[in-house]
């Protein structure tokens, strides 16, 4: 399959390299704004972000919803998100399919949900609430996880597909998370991609992490540190995904070693090369994957 139109390519905006980002706007087609930085950040940070509106397209991404916590959604938070999304003129709002907190305790880290139909039903209802408060398409993002709940009886793809199909949410596909989960938990990432209905993936995240040598596990464990260049294996998955999906935006995430801006620009170039290859039909056959489950 040949891709006929390419997605916008950009980075997640980070204040610490804000000056560099503004000086290099012509390198990007789009920037992803973390809405929580607009809600909880300072006036200077907010002003710097809102100043970008109109200079290039912005997408809106959240980290503070905790949609999976088994309590009602924070509607006031969603209303603030709606204001930010409108001000950014963002075409969509994305959040993680995860939970980060319970009343009285906030891990500030994304945790997986049991992948069951009952949990999916509850998430579907919450997505409908989100859509009723935030007037742009809502996208859910797959997370990386160290462990799974023992009662999970749906695969990652089945769980996402069920929720997105029934709620009308799109998918923000984090390909690095897919690569990490497939490696750490031994499943075939290409089978995951092939199980997604065409058109479901609206946006994409890419990043690079580190490999931990864990003596107890007796095997390497990949960590989603957003600190290093995107691995070739994730870019291979991107190429394969682009034969079936037409995302509007591909965002490179970087949260550590942000001074290595050359690596960021190099990754952007590598992503653009993979898109060009997909558009010309030059996507390699899927690698042979040692899938364990």
């Amino acid at each position, binding site marked *: 399959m040949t891709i006929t139109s390419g997605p916008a390519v950009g980075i997640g905006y980070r204040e610490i390299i804000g000056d560099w980002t503004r000086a290099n706007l012509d390198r990007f087609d789009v920037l992803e704004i973390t809405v929580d930085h607009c809600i909880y950040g300072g006036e200077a940070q907010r002003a710097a972000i809102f100043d970008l509106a109109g200079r290039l397209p912005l997408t809106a991404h959240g*980290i503070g919803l905790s949609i999976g916590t*088994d309590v009602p959604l924070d509607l006031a938070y969603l209303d603030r998100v709606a204001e930010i999304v409108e001000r950014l003129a963002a075409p969509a709002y994305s959040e993680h399919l995860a*939970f980060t907190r*319970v*009343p009285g305790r906030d891990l*500030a880290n994304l945790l997986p949900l049991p992948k069951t139909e009952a*949990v999916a039903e509850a998430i579907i209802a919450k997505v409908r609430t989100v859509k009723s408060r935030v007037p742009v398409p809502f996208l859910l993002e797959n997370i990386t996880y160290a*462990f799974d709940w023992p009662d999970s009886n749906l695969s990652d793809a089945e769980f996402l597909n069920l929720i997105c199909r029934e709620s009308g949410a799109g998918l923000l596909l984090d390909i690095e998370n897919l690569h990490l989960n497939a490696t750490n938990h031994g499943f075939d990432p290409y089978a995951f991609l092939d199980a997604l209905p065409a058109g479901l993936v609206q946006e994409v995240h890419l990043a690079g992490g580190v490999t931990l040598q864990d003596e107890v596990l007796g095997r390497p464990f990949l960590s989603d540190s957003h600190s290093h260049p995107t691995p070739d294996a994730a870019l291979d998955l991107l190429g394969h995904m682009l034969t079936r999906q037409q995302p509007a935006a591909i965002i490179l995430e970087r949260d550590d070693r942000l001074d290595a801006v050359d690596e960021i620009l190099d990754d952007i170039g590598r992503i653009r090369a993979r898109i060009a290859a997909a558009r010309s039909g030059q996507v390699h056959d899927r690698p042979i994957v040692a899938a364990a489950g």
Partner: protein
Amino acid sequence: MTDRLLQRQASLLAYLTSAAAIFGEHAGASVPRPLRGIEPHLLHLEAQFSYDKRMAKIAGAFPRTFAMLGDDLDALLREFVDACPPVDISRIVNARQFHDFLVARWRRSPPEPAYLPEVAACELACGSVHTAHDGAPAQGAPLDPGAPAGSIRRHSGVVLLRCAYDVRPIFEDGGEDAEPVARDTPLVVAVPVGHSGPRVAELPPVVFDLLASLDEWTDPSAFADTAEAEELLLDLIDHGLVEVRA
């Protein structure tokens, strides 16, 4: 979702924020019943990832304090983890939790060196001032709708500290090994006009007391009753230590 799921989520977070999970003491100890069936070592990895993120925020706020805690740091952090589970994602809230923990601990066991509380207080003040300078939504000091234009108050981004040691040299470039002198030192932590980051400076006692009295919007005529006082007030306004209600 069911009540049972919330209970399981709460149980998971309680476990992941415990010293047992973070420091890998799960071997031989059973995980809580709602988490049975999850590989304990994977929970340990998750706990460690989350702990590392939280401690990066706290260590970033207290670089000098961490260095001075030295060999005590590891034991202290284990104690902190169980005493103060994370309640918020923000750096400043986690920093305040750690500072409150230190202060409570130092009441029971005097710190070494003795000026460590002053250093920690200054570092927390720098973090608070930085947050306030960046204009984060105000915590406390709500706008008094009754205050008339022209009222003055201490700038909301200014922190006053009365220290028993002059710890300023520690906050100067290359001053990590400085030995503070024991003396009553009225300090102000603020972002000076034209600067991007907080600075620690000593104030004359009379100025310190004046700023300390300006918690609320106040009629300036109560202070600027002489030419000298008026000049001082204008100077404080110019330096960004006092703000005037528009």
